[in-house]
Structure formats: structure tokens, C-alpha cells
């Protein structure tokens, strides 16, 4: 009997993926076996899984640091510093989303366990995306991530907005996945492989006589991934979905999905198709400029805070793209730092939105924030820090990461893009100011609910994220050092 050649598996590198997936399945099993699990079980379980993964990234990091990047499973999955870094971001997002949801779900009277299961599975998909070494694996990871989120978006059964958001997200997501897939097919046709390392090596040593198929594939890949990270003109779903989906889900979408999406974008374009940077960079630059400007401009006329944050997330995506288009080590590490700080800013912000949104997840208008500075000073203060961070005010992490992407862009000579980004930042500042005005400079609307205690889970998220954002602004050194070492590499398996 012929021995089946089994591929090499670096199990140590699969621990995060396995942890998330297994935690998800075990939770599902447990929930179906136990009739009435204690309410705290599922979130605690999820947080534990997140903490475990987050903790595990430390030894993983040092191992990658000492052994270097590697790939396994027949080169389909790779592990490098950047994938560890993104895994860490995903773990933080999972923890935060679970903490927020812990208060949210009972308040909204929603089934508890499914949320956490889907969250964990989605995170597993994200981990796959961040460490995919093969375009098909990337597609798989993306779908695992996305399908779970489609369901999560629809979780709020009684809100038609939630279902509408889910449907929109689902239809458009599937639509863009098709583009991605077709793009993969074309790239496969042009290079003869779906393995990124192989493609990269192939392109480095071969000059294609006819590269139309490859370039068409690149275009479609960009469509698919651009949708996930919400850049213009593939962004239009974001505000609707952010507004409609349950807020803890939005926190995960904004922090986790975006991080995984950008990690994938970086692996595909900067690493795999780095040889064709002169072809795709102009497209990236135009998209980046359009993204920051459209996001900022349209945000100006919004009155729903969740929607504002959605548009602001579009601006952020544009900013990250500004760093990414540099296609340099400096650019890559700036993208990673941006993702990390952005994840903190966004989970903290949506935690606040969850609290203020109140029962029914509907009080998201600016009016709900009026006088918050007096009614709930701590909450408002933390939100102010987070908003100022999003605006990129100095001495917040937001500034440090904006500086990072600008440095990368200017280093490449992309002056006009950097300028456009800063102009957009100035416009976007108006949006954050509007919230600040409502919180501090306006009196509470009559009949607004009295100050209540901020739920513990959300409180932890808000305080930790605000504090970390401030800390990152004052002492950005460690974060920048880590990100500098986290540059992604592709290793042929």
C-alpha cells in the first residue's frame, strides 16, 4: 500500500486558528447539550479564547523572530511576523466584541450563544486570511470570515434594519467574492499557480509576453478585496450595514474584518505582485484619494453617529491605503500600526455607541449624545479621547499612525496623495467635532434618560482602548518597534 504523502504541518503556527475554531465548535456543542448555560459562560469562553490567542502570539512572535518566516501545508499557509501581528489584532477585536456583546445581547433579548460561536468562527477565518499563502486559501478564509458576519449582521431579529443590512452585505459580499474568485482564476491562468510565493517567484524571474490576463486578474482581485476593506467605489454598503447591524457586530466588522482584509490586500498586492507595483500603484493612489475625500465629505452631512463612524472608517481605509500603496517596508509597518490603533479606536467607539444606543439599539442620532459630557463624564471623556484619536490629534495613537502612513507616502514621493489625505483629515475633523459639540457644548435634550452605570464589559473596552490610544500617542516607541519587525514575507513551501 502506497504511503499517502502527508504535508508538513507546523502545528505551533496553527494554534490561533485551531483555538478559535475549536472554541467555536465546542461552545456550539456545549450550548446544544446544556439546556440552560449560565449567561456568563459564552462571553467568558470567548474572551478566554481571545486571551489565549493573544497570549500565544507572544511565544509565537519570538519563535518567528528567531526562526524566521515559514510556510507549511504544502505552502498553502505561511506564518510570518505580520500574520502574528494581525492575529493579535483579531484576538483583541474578538475580546472587545465579546465584552461589548455580553451586556448588549441580554439587553436586546437576543439569543446568546450563536453570536459568540459565529464570532469565534469568523475570527478563525480572519486568522486564515492573515496567514494565507495561497490565493484559494485566502478566498476560503475570506468566506469563512464573511459568512459568519452575514449571519451576525442579521442577528437582531426584531430590527428590520438589521436584516436589511445583512441582506445588503450578503448580496454585495457574494457579488464581490465572485470578482475575487474570477480574479484568482485569471491569475492562475496567467501564472500557473495559486500559491502566492510561487507566483511571486515566477513573476520575479519571468517577463510575461502577454500579461493582459494577469493584469485583468489583478483588477478583479482588487475589486474583491477592496469591497472587504470598504474603499471607494466599493464602499457604499458600509454606512448602511454599520447602521443596521447590531453594534457589537459592527465593532467586530470594523476592527477585525478590516484588519484581516488589509492583511490580505497587503499579502496579495505588495508581496505577491510587488513586481507589478508600477501598474497597480496609480490605481491604489486614485482609490486612496477618492476614499479619503468621499468618506470625509459625505460624513459631514450625517446625523447618525453610527453612520458617521462608518464614513469615518472609510476615511481610515483610505488612509491605510495611502501607506499601503508605498509598497515598502516602511509602508507595510505603517499599515500594521494603523490597523492596530484603528482597531482600538473603533472597538472603543462602538462600545460607547452600544452603551448610548440604549435598548433597541436605536438611539444613535446626534441628539442622543447631547449633554453627555455632563450626564456621563467618564463615558464622554473616553469617547472624546477616541474621537480625537480618530481625528488624528497629536498625542493620541491616531496621530502616530497617520504620521506613519504619511511618512511612507512622502518617502515614496507621493506628495499629492499625502496632501489630499491631510485635507480629508481636516474635513473629517468636522465630523468628530460635531459629536464633541453635542456631548460638551449642548444641553441634554429634555426627557433623555438619566445617567446610568456603564455596563462592566463595555466599560473595560472603553477605558482600556482610550487609555491605550493615549499611551500609544505619548509613547509610540514599542508599538512602532513591533510593527517595524512585523513586515510580511512570503516563503515558498
Amino acid at each position, binding site marked *: 500500500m502506497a504511503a499517502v504523502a502527508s504535508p508538513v504541518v507546523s502545528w505551533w503556527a496553527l494554534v490561533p486558528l485551531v483555538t478559535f475554531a475549536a472554541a467555536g465548535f465546542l461552545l456550539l456543542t456545549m450550548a446544544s447539550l446544556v439546556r440552560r448555560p449560565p449567561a456568563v459562560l459564552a462571553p467568558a469562553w470567548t474572551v478566554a479564547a481571545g486571551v489565549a490567542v493573544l497570549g500565544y502570539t507572544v511565544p509565537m512572535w519570538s519563535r518567528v523572530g528567531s526562526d524566521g518566516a515559514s510556510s507549511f501545508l504544502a505552502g498553502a499557509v505561511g506564518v510570518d511576523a505580520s500574520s502574528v501581528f494581525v492575529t493579535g489584532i483579531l484576538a483583541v477585536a474578538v475580546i472587545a466584541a465579546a465584552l461589548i456583546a455580553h451586556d448588549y445581547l441580554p439587553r436586546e433579548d437576543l439569543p446568546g450563544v450563536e453570536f459568540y460561536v459565529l464570532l469565534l468562527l469568523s475570527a478563525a477565518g480572519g486568522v486564515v486570511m492573515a496567514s494565507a499563502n495561497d490565493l*484559494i486559501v485566502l*478566498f*476560503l478564509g475570506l*468566506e469563512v470570515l464573511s*459568512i459568519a458576519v*452575514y*449571519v451576525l449582521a*442579521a442577528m437582531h*431579529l426584531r430590527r*428590520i*434594519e438589521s*436584516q*436589511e*443590512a*445583512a*441582506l*445588503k452585505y*450578503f*448580496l454585495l459580499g*457574494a*457579488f464581490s*467574492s*465572485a*470578482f475575487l*474568485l*474570477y480574479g*484568482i*482564476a*485569471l491569475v*492562475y*491562468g496567467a501564472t*500557473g*499557480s*495559486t500559491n502566492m510565493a510561487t507566483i511571486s517567484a515566477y513573476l520575479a524571474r519571468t517577463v510575461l509576453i502577454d500579461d493582459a490576463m494577469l493584469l485583468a486578474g489583478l483588477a478583479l482581485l482588487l475589486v474583491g478585496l477592496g469591497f472587504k476593506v470598504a474603499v471607494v467605489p466599493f464602499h457604499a454598503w458600509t*454606512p*448602511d*450595514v454599520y*447602521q*443596521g447591524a447590531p453594534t457589537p457586530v459592527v465593532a467586530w466588522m470594523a476592527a477585525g474584518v478590516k484588519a484581516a482584509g488589509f492583511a490580505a490586500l497587503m499579502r496579495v498586492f505588495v508581496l505577491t505582485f510587488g513586481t507589478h507595483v508600477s501598474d497597480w500603484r496609480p490605481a491604489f493612489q486614485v482609490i486612496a484619494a477618492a476614499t479619503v475625500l468621499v468618506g470625509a465629505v459625505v460624513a459631514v452631512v*450625517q446625523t447618525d453617529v453610527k*453612520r458617521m463612524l462608518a464614513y469615518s472608517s472609510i476615511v481610515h481605509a483610505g488612509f491605510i491605503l495611502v501607506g499601503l500603496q508605498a509598497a515598502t517596508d516602511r509602508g507595510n509597518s505603517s499599515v500594521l500600526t494603523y490597523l492596530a490603533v484603528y482597531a482600538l479606536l473603533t472597538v472603543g467607539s462602538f462600545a460607547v455607541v452600544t452603551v448610548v444606543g440604549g435598548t433597541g439599539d436605536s438611539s444613535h442620532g446626534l441628539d442622543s449624545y447631547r449633554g453627555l459630557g455632563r450626564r456621563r463624564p467618564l463615558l464622554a471623556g473616553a469617547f472624546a479621547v477616541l474621537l480625537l484619536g480618530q481625528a488624528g490629534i497629536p498625542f493620541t495613537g491616531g496621530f502616530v499612525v497617520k504620521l506613519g502612513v504619511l511618512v511612507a507616502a512622502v518617502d515614496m514621493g507621493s506628495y499629492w496623495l499625502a496632501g489630499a489625505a491631510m485635507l480629508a483629515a481636516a474635513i473629517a475633523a468636522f465630523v468628530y467635532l460635531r459629536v464633541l459639540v453635542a456631548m460638551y457644548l449642548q444641553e441634554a435634550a429634555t426627557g433623555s434618560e438619566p445617567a446610568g452605570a456603564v455596563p462592566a464589559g463595555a466599560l473595560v473596552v472603553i477605558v482600556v482602548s482610550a487609555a491605550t490610544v493615549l499611551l500609544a500617542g505619548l509613547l509610540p516607541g514599542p508599538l512602532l518597534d513591533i510593527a517595524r519587525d512585523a513586515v510580511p514575507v512570503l516563503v515558498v513551501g
Partner: protein
Amino acid sequence: MVVTTGWYLALGAALFSMGAVGLLVRRNPLVMFMCVELMLNAANLTFVSLGAELADLGGQLSVFFVLVVAAAEVVVGLAVIVAIMRRRPGATVDDLSVLGG
């Protein structure tokens, strides 16, 4: 007439375009979803033909993954659509625009 790989690729591209255009013009969520399936299958067709052209198994293998993914999407998609239809029978996607602006 020899049916070369090029014809298959062209067919794939045509199907993909039809699916895309279909999604843009139809209003029934189910039909729109079927258009997406059409696009995915166009991609599958392209994979298979290219795999044959390149004499590489990878192309064929990819199709299996895609099929699984498509199946999963169907499950989720149908569930969402049904949930909505139950609340608003006969709704088209154009009716679902509470959110916007």
C-alpha cells in the same frame, strides 16, 4: 472546428458578465443571488479550463473549494432572504432601503 481553451474562457467570461449584469438589473433577491451563483460557476469554469490547459490539478481542486463555499453561502443567503420575506412578503431589494443617505 476545434474547441480550444480560449472558447471555454470566453464562455466563462460571458457567463460571468451575464451574472454581473443580471445582479444589477433584477430586483428579486433570490434571482440576484442566483446571478451570483452564475458568476461563481463562471469562475469555476474558467478554473477548470485553465487547469486543463496548464495540465495542473490545482485548477480542478479549486473548484471543489468554491463549491463548498457556494453551498455555505446558499445556506446563509437563503436564511436571510427567507427571514426578510417572512416579514415583508414579496419585497424586492428596492423596497429594502430603510438605511441610506
